[in-house]
């Protein structure tokens, strides 16, 4: 294994109370890379968006497992947020700014837009009825 790599995996119930846990854990993991305060804030918002999507959309309020996998290598951090929920049928549509399937719940439709704005790369893999993986990548420049 390369010297400057590190990994962690967090598995938790899809409860809103755990959104804070997820973003703070990823932020704590990332501190080894000596990020700026702004980079930490960006990362926390992106993780919060991905986890909120799992809770509201993937599992639609039911309590199941969400997995957050982080890996760092030198200046790069990868964060994967994984669920086994309903899946997304039209990924480009879901990623459009202001698109939401739940406007009545005051969802802004800005989740993926924020992830894309705050991370360097966001890709989504999804299968309807099987689940979704959101891959995110960010370079932390010391």
């Amino acid at each position, binding site marked *: 294994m390369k010297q400057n790599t590190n990994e962690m995996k967090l598995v938790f119930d899809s409860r809103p109370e755990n959104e804070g846990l997820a973003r703070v854990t990823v932020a704590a993991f990332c501190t080894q890379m000596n990020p700026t305060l702004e980079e930490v804030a960006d990362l926390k918002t992106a993780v919060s*968006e991905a986890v*909120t999507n799992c809770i509201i959309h993937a599992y639609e309020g039911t309590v199941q497992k969400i997995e957050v996998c982080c890996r760092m290598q030198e200046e790069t951090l990868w964060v994967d947020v994984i669920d086994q929920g309903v899946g997304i049928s039209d990924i480009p549509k879901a990623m459009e700014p202001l698109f939401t399937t739940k406007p009545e719940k005051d969802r802004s439709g800005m989740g993926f837009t924020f992830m894309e*704005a705050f991370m360097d790369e966001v890709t989504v893999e999804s299968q309807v009825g099987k689940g979704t993986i959101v891959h995110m990548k960010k370079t932390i420049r010391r």
Partner: protein
Amino acid sequence: MENRFEIQGNCLIIHLPKEVDHMVTDEIRRDSDEIIRKKYIRTITFDFSGTAFMDSSGIGLIMGRYRAMGMRGDCIQATGVSSYIEKLLHLSGVYKFVEICGKV
């Protein structure tokens, strides 16, 4: 949380918590809509001075209250806005109808 809502004349001030995410926005939405129904409110001021974190749930909260207030031009204000919160307001486009002010 106590004193989250404050009414000054016909302005409703919402003192937002430290972390504005999906869990707290549901609660704030419920409570603020009840106040709007019961009292004559012309302006809602979101006070961010105690807020260190927000995600798009907070943006949804602002957009929803703008709709609830009839989408009038001067009905939503924000105060105590840090550079990070300002970035979120701009990125999401809500700054177009949110007046950013200094003090409450």
